[in-house]
């Protein structure tokens, strides 16, 4: 019984973090129509940022995550101007290649600097008893923080002028320009926010699981599965997809070896693409 409760809680908490990373991917797709193949690399960068702040200054990831968010926005905006700005109106293959090369550069340099030795952040917060099951406090905080960041993104997108401009650009870029929206700025900011969400999700996950510079790839793939589950271009769908994936992953492993999980995930991906390509919550 306790095993089930613990699996479900873990699934929900981690699912929220996976959802957060996927929302970043989704935002970038929704606004820029770019499939960001460097998402995993930035998730890994977020992990290492949290790791170094923790080991150099003793600052917990649950504090430094705010810094990492700001860093992510700046790095993402710079990355936009370096890698995407000139190819943004080119066919999709160009932006795919461009973000893929960004990913290769980050992971290549990361492997050189950090090696591929596994690292871990032990926040040392102990466990919390929830519904009769002991859950690591870092996992609880990871879920909670992911929920807060998701909510904050919503408030930003729906209540501020800049957020509304981002939504307007995602719906009709030319019309947004006619309204006086500086679309270049909005595109770079959207990429910045998408990257920041990836790095934040990485920093949070790093407090739960050990990682290497190559770990981002696994979470990037999860983000893709989540976006397909929830429908590309639907941020709420991404959150729901994240929860579903988190639950599956944690509950299934009670009954089958962990190694089967990716297989199941991709089976879902293929089935959804065949049956309802717009995603479970997607339109059309």
């Amino acid at each position, binding site marked *: 019984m306790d095993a089930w409760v613990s699996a479900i809680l873990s699934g929900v908490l981690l699912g929220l973090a996976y959802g957060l990373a996927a929302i970043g991917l989704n935002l970038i797709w929704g606004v820029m129509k770019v499939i960001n193949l460097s998402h995993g690399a930035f998730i890994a960068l977020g992990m290492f940022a949290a790791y170094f702040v923790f080991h150099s200054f003793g600052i917990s990831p649950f504090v430094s995550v705010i810094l990492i968010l700001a860093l992510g926005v700046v790095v993402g905006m710079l990355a936009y101007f370096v890698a995407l700005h000139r190819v943004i109106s080119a066919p999709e293959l160009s932006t795919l290649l461009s973000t893929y090369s960004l990913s290769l550069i980050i992971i290549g340099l990361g492997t050189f600097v950090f090696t591929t030795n596994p690292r871990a952040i032990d926040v040392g917060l102990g466990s919390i008893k929830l519904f009769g099951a002991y859950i690591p406090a870092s996992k609880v905080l990871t879920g909670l923080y992911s929920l807060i960041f998701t909510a904050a993104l919503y408030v930003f997108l729906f209540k501020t002028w800049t957020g509304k401009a981002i939504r307007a650009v995602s719906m009709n870029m030319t019309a947004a320009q006619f309204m*006086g929206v500086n679309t270049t700025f909005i595109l770079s900011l959207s990429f910045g926010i998408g990257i920041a969400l990836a790095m934040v999700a990485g920093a949070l996950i790093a407090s739960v699981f050990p990682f290497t510079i190559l770990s981002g790839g696994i979470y990037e793939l999860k983000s893709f599965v989540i976006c397909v589950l929830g429908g590309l271009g639907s941020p709420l769908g991404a959150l729901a997809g994240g929860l579903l994936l988190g639950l599956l992953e944690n509950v299934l492993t009670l009954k089958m070896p962990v190694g089967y999980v990716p297989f199941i995930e991709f089976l879902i991906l293929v089935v959804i693409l065949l049956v309802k390509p717009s995603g479970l919550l997607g339109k059309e």
Partner: protein
Amino acid sequence: MADVILQVEKLSTGYGEVQILWEVSIQAKRGQLTTIIGSNGSGKTTLLRAITGIIPAWSGRIIFNGEDITNVPAYKRADMGLIMVPEGRMLFPEMTVYENLEMGAYNKRARQKIKESLEFVLHLFPRLKERLNQKAGTMSGGEQQMVALGRGLMGCPELLILDEPSLGLAPKLVLDVFDVVKKLREEGITMLLVEQNVHLSLMLTDWAYVMAEGRVVMEGSGEELEKSDEVRKAYLGI
């Protein structure tokens, strides 16, 4: 003598290697309705794209409110009061009607006056009042055109550019659109209208230009042009 708000001087432009506009000169005066007519492919839309800054000018100048805006980016032109109601409406479909109107007031000048503008727009289109929370994409074509016009007005236009506002609408709705244009003209809003519905536009307009093959081939008051044999033959089918 009304002063000139928009002056386009010998503007040439095009796409890639293909030149579309050949030294086009037009002007729009404050408080007046200026119309550009011409058949499909005559360069009207390209001219508007250059005026709003969506495509760059190859040569010539665009002067707006006394300032040379030829090289000013498109989004800054909206800040200056050059507001476009684009062809095909281009609403933000997943936003509510209210949000669409709000986006109309995105430019710096308009934000401060958002309440008054909203009042004005809802007074002009009372039917939008009950629809404020509806998603714009779910409305009918006529209603969408109202939202598009309202969104343009929310921008506190010094010059409101209307690109084919009656295109694709049922005849009854076409008359509604021209009714609105007439009202706005009476309110003293400066407008530049591009229309295929030549007869209705010429009846309302203060001054009109006729474009063909990327050039201005004729200009005059609405009355004059309507009487002209060439216009009658080419556009009115009489």
